């Protein structure tokens, strides 16, 4: 009887999706709700949590360090977008060119950095951007007569290191995304364009770019997400969450600092909720603008 019920066509789909429903409820909905609730509380070691209304949020709005973190995450996101979308796209087009030698080799070596863990990559970059005369970047600059730079102590130079790390790891991956997008563009389009006498640049702007739009939107979406949620890269580059003058502090880093280093669970929850709002707003706006919701396929 029960077996018949379980094996019926009506019930089977629910059995199939049950694991997702469970995971979603237990590991997403519940924590999200409890995070939301916690953001209205003050939690003290060894004592009952107190309801404090919107205190955490009002405090957040006058917290200069929090705004520093938001600015850092925002700037990081924008810089990675500016670098990790146009360049990989360009590289993909170039590497896809029929005049290219050693295509497979270059594809592989560009992708290679993505295989390293952030811990390893971050440590290597921290040492490369060390402030000593003999550290890799400084020794290269030294060849051109540049004095050693304290990269990880300055806002601009620190971000150079941070963005270099991100670019190094993701350039090849994004390039592959665009390459797979390029595969879906029929060759006829280009041939037709050639007959009409279009230049290579025209072909790129009129055919390649518009037809790469779905790929671009995908890369844009994951890059926004990754940019705003960045934390470990900064933690590894500065060997901890306390960079000088907080130049490397990100929103998630601040959440970690408040929630885990300082035990302000309620306050940290408020930081998390604000981050969630920021991510949602940016991504939904972006998707709306790019017309993702209109097209149904």
């Amino acid at each position, binding site marked *: 009887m029960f077996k018949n019920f379980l094996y019926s066509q009506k019930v*089977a789909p629910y059995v199939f999706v049950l694991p997702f429903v469970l995971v979603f409820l237990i590991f997403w909905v519940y924590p999200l709700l409890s*995070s939301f609730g916690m953001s209205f509380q003050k939690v003290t070691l060894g004592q009952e949590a107190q309801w404090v209304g919107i205190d955490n949020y009002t405090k957040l709005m006058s917290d200069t360090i929090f705004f520093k973190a938001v600015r850092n995450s925002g700037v990081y996101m924008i810089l990675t977008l500016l670098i990790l979308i146009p360049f990989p796209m360009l590289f993909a087009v*170039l590497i896809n060119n029929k005049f290219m030698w050693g295509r497979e080799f270059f594809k592989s*070596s560009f992708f290679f950095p993505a295989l390293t863990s*952030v811990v*390893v*990559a971050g440590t290597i970059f921290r040492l490369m951007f060390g402030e*000593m005369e003999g550290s890799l970047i400084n020794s290269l600059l030294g060849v051109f007569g540049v004095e050693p730079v304290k990269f990880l102590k300055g806002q601009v130079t620190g971000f150079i290191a941070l963005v270099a790390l991100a670019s190094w790891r993701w350039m090849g991956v994004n390039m592959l995304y665009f390459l797979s997008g390029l595969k879906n563009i029929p060759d006829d389009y280009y041939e037709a364009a050639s007959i009409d006498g279009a230049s290579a640049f025209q072909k790129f702007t009129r055919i390649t770019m518009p037809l790469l739009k779905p790929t671009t939107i995908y890369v844009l979406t994951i890059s926004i997400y990754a940019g705003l949620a960045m934390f470990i890269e900064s933690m590894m580059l500065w060997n901890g969450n306390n960079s000088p003058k907080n130049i490397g502090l990100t929103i998630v880093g601040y959440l970690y600092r408040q929630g885990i280093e300082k035990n302000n*669970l309620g306050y940290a929850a408020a930081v998390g909720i604000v981050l*969630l709002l920021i991510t949602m707003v940016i991504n939904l706006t972006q998707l709306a603008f790019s017309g993702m919701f209109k097209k149904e396929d």
Partner: protein
Amino acid sequence: MKKETAIKIVLFAFFTVVCLLILIPFYAVTIASFKPGEDLIRYGLNLKFDLSVMNFDNFVYLFTGDHAYFTWFFNSVLLTLVQVTLTLLVSATVAYGFSAYEFRGKNFLFICVLLIMMVPFEILLLPLYTLTNNMGLMNSYSAIILPGIAGAATIFFFRQYLSGIPKEIIAAGRVDGASEYGIYLRLILPIMKPSFAAMAILNGMNSWNNFLWPFMVLSSEHKYTLPIGLKTLLTPYGNNYDLLIVGSFFSILPILALFLAFQKYFIDGMTAGAVKG
């Protein structure tokens, strides 16, 4: 013809330069793994190929020294294997449910799948930590595996893949008297094989390099994964640069070997999630 050759040379030269830039960090860490850790602290990570200070001491220490490196290494391998296998099986099952049936609440649930892909996991760290704690899963691999066992991106990909499989197979299976689950296990899963390779690679890479959540959950040294273990070496009270650098170097090798052997799958796996135009 002349012009084509010129273009070829320019392109090749350009990519060679970029490629060299990308490979510099690997070169530096390779060189450093042959130098004493003290050298690194004193002169920084650099490109100097100086045979007079280079030796195999670090490698000897890596393989014979008294440390937990290979415990971490083995843990990482084990965790990656288990996590990938379970995630793929569960996600494929869920994806099949979404793809093969029409049922009440289907669209809502699928929107939830898409939504997960947009919520930064990091904001759930603290409540998830408390939850894990209350479930008694602290310091266990289950705590790392369970939250991601129905991976949104993986479900999404499998569903896309399944939409290309003709529904007639299912109908034929029903005619033959197979149960709903039998159809999935005997008819569909075998056809999905090619898509598993790509997803295995994608999930495997994520799992192998996963850091933040395992780092919060695991507290005993003998359960650490490789990234966590390597990070514990970064302490001014231990002077562990010898092991750190050679360990970092060595941690790249197995995944590099896998990559070279299964390059095509890696690349397919990485791009599989991208929306097809």
